[in-house]
């Protein structure tokens, strides 16, 4: 399709997609397809994005988080018109006879009509279900159109990992947070498995009165988040804490009265040493898909991230 895009046109196109899929499946297997939808996922792609790779990531997310996916591609050549198409992502679960399908809508828009694309996305979002916006272009947070993004989504997810200035990126997010936007940052999501392990170590262990924390570089923003989270957590338990960053290593070290903890990534493993006792668990590399999969489980505010973001902004 290469005609002007309106919400009505997209909705009609989606109805056609379902009719076609249903009759095809009916004639092949005797049963229709199963439509699955638990949210609307709006993806605002960045100019650098490879649209095929992004499409594969969205397709991989669907079995776990079935959604009406609306992908807005920046297209400088699109002029003032919006163009796009609707189609379905289908998969056949192992051992079953019925396909499961999710809707996907692609919208091409130049930067000058992004606001129009967002209004179309708002009109075709599935009613009564959460709307998560994955904003892949961090610069959008500084533009006036961001208020439309904020109005559209129940939660906005960004990724600050590639930000050239981590401190500025964190402060920008903190400003948006203070405006009441529910935010997620994949730089924080990358820390979950590390944080989980640290938390487990203190499940039934008394916290030392003073701690020295050394944080290696997972990414510059992630390191600041990790540092802020550790400092906040120790201080909330009345432990005095000093923090150092140690660029160039993927490790976290905690030392205090009679306690020494080291967590180090080595390939796909997370090695933990607590007072000489060793432990090893799986730590597979994370992709955008695995990170987003975790973020899509949270549809509103994330209080611990928000607390950490505020602290990281003043580190």
């Amino acid at each position, binding site marked *: 399709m290469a005609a002007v895009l309106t919400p009505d046109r997209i909705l009609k196109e989606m109805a056609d997609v379902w009719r076609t899929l249903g009759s095809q499946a009916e004639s092949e297997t005797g049963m229709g397809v*199963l439509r*699955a939808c*638990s949210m609307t996922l709006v993806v605002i792609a960045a100019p650098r994005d490879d649209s095929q790779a992004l499409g594969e990531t969205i397709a991989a997310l669907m*079995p*776990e988080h*079935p959604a009406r996916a609306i992908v807005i591609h920046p297209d400088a050549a699109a002029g003032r018109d919006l163009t796009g198409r609707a189609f379905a992502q289908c*998969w056949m*679960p192992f*051992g*079953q006879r*019925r396909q*499961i399908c999710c809707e996907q809508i692609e919208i091409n828009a130049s930067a000058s009509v992004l606001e129009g694309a967002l209004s179309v996305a708002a009109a075709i979002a599935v009613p009564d279900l959460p709307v998560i916006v994955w904003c892949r272009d961090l610069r959008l947070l500084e533009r006036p159109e961001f208020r439309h993004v904020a109005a559209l989504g129940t939660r906005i997810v960004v990724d600050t990992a590639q930000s050239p200035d981590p401190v500025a990126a964190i402060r920008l997010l903190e400003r948006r947070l203070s405006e009441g936007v529910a935010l997620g940052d994949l730089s924080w999501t990358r820390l*979950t*498995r590390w*944080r*989980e*392990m*640290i*938390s*487990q*170590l*203190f*499940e*039934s*262990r*008394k*916290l030392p009165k003073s701690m020295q924390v050394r944080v290696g570089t997972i990414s510059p923003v992630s390191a600041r988040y990790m540092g802020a989270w550790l400092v906040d*957590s*120790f201080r*909330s*338990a009345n432990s005095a804490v000093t923090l150092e960053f140690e660029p160039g290593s993927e490790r976290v070290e905690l030392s205090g009265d009679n306690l020494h903890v080291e967590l180090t990534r080595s390939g796909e*493993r*997370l090695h*933990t*040493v*607590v007072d000489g*006792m*060793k*432990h*090893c*668990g*799986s*730590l597979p590399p994370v992709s955008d898909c695995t990170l987003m999969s*975790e973020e899509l489980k*949270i549809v509103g505010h*994330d*209080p*611990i991230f928000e607390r950490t973001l505020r602290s990281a902004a003043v580190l």
Partner: protein
Amino acid sequence: MAGVNPFDDPLRFERRVPECTIVIFGANGDLAKRKLIPALYRLAYDRRLPPGFAIVGNSRTPLTDDQFREKMREAAQQFSEDTEFSSEVWDAFARGLFYLAGDIGDAQLYERLRSKLDELDGARHTGGNVLFYLSTQPSQYAAVAAGMGAAGLGQGSGWRRLVVEKPFGHDVASARELTDRLHTAFSEPDVYRIDHYLGKETVQNILAFRFGNGIFEPLWNRRYVNHVQITAAESIGVEGRGAYYQEAGALADMIQNHLLQVTATIAMEPSSSFRADSVRDERSKLLRSIRPMTPDEIRVNSAPGQYGPGRIGGTDVPGFRQEPGVDPNARTDTYAAVTFFIENWRWVGVPFYLRTGKRLPKRVTEIAIQFNAAPLAIFDGEASSSAPNLLIVRIQPDEGISLKFLSKRPGAGMKLRPVSMDFNYGSSFGERSPSAYETLLLDALIGDPTLYTRQDMVEASWAVVEPIEKVWRETRSDLPNYAAGTWGPAAADEMLARRGHAWRKP
């Protein structure tokens, strides 16, 4: 405990195991190798075990720690179905594996065990927390409990819990006697009777489905529900368990525990909270509401069966009496169908049909709730009268929930046809579902007994099953009475036909 963990992030973190030791009695047996060690390895792989976590295995076979580790390594490699085996993860996990050979009738074993636990507490900071797992023959439970009681192992500086596998006795009196023995070492809140059916995701989802949604509960009663069918069918035979199985039978092996627990979950009143005792109180109350039947009632509301030779998938399969280790004249029930009646305001008059059997056409476990027909049939056509509204909860395989209802066929005219609205657990949430043992072990280690069976529940279910067993023992049924690969004996069909109902073909 050191109080609230300031690092916790309940929105994102998975549940984790606290520092502790697991003692497995019968560690050289099948259950430990096939289920327990693979489940614990998976927890280690997922970083859910703490660095100090330890396992002490016990059996009579003399083994060194290293020999035990090697055996368990083989088991983890062979039986970890959907988990990558990593030598690195295993080596770290195996450093916490220890072995203590000894006869469970020998009092010295428990003294040595106490020393070992003290030693581990010092070396691995387990906080004195110990979960004892009875993976032995049921006949040995009492001896282990007595040994632990005498050695004071039920008490310590941390928490102490005991996990027991079924069967929990073979009637009310023996269940009570077993409990009395377990209570010599552990108080009831620390006894975890495992029923792996309750650990299945879909069984847990029944609670979410019923009590997390507002639209179903108003229909969940005798006004709208016509009857309920619960089926647990297995396509396999006794698979080398002939000797054990001929002593137990389908009624005791499946209905007394798994299926009555599932019934309790589907029919219980809403609990006031999701706290363990609150949920278990309601389950228990429901089980106590099932009316024990008189012998005459049992004869028309139950049907035992035993499979004879047959063909499955083009292959000849032996009858039960031809299975290895089975008495050629065995009168064991390999199939059991029972109609239960729940006597409370919500369910009085609604039959609950339970059936289970071996060598049935396929492996399937499901609950089918059939609703009453619309009070007035205003549409012509067969479909409007022959396709009742059904809510199907599929427990295995293909876990999910389906609602069957009538819809107008597209096109001119008012022709109806049944359609299905499906929720498929695996495809709607494509994450790997933890195995029932992973879930239940984690629950026991965390101290959450919600999915475990309490003594009053065991006694309540024996109270309704015991009279049926007695009547079946006294009645000379003509066995075998169904061919392998079919849906059970004709008597089971007749049991439903008397009320104008028929078994679903799942």
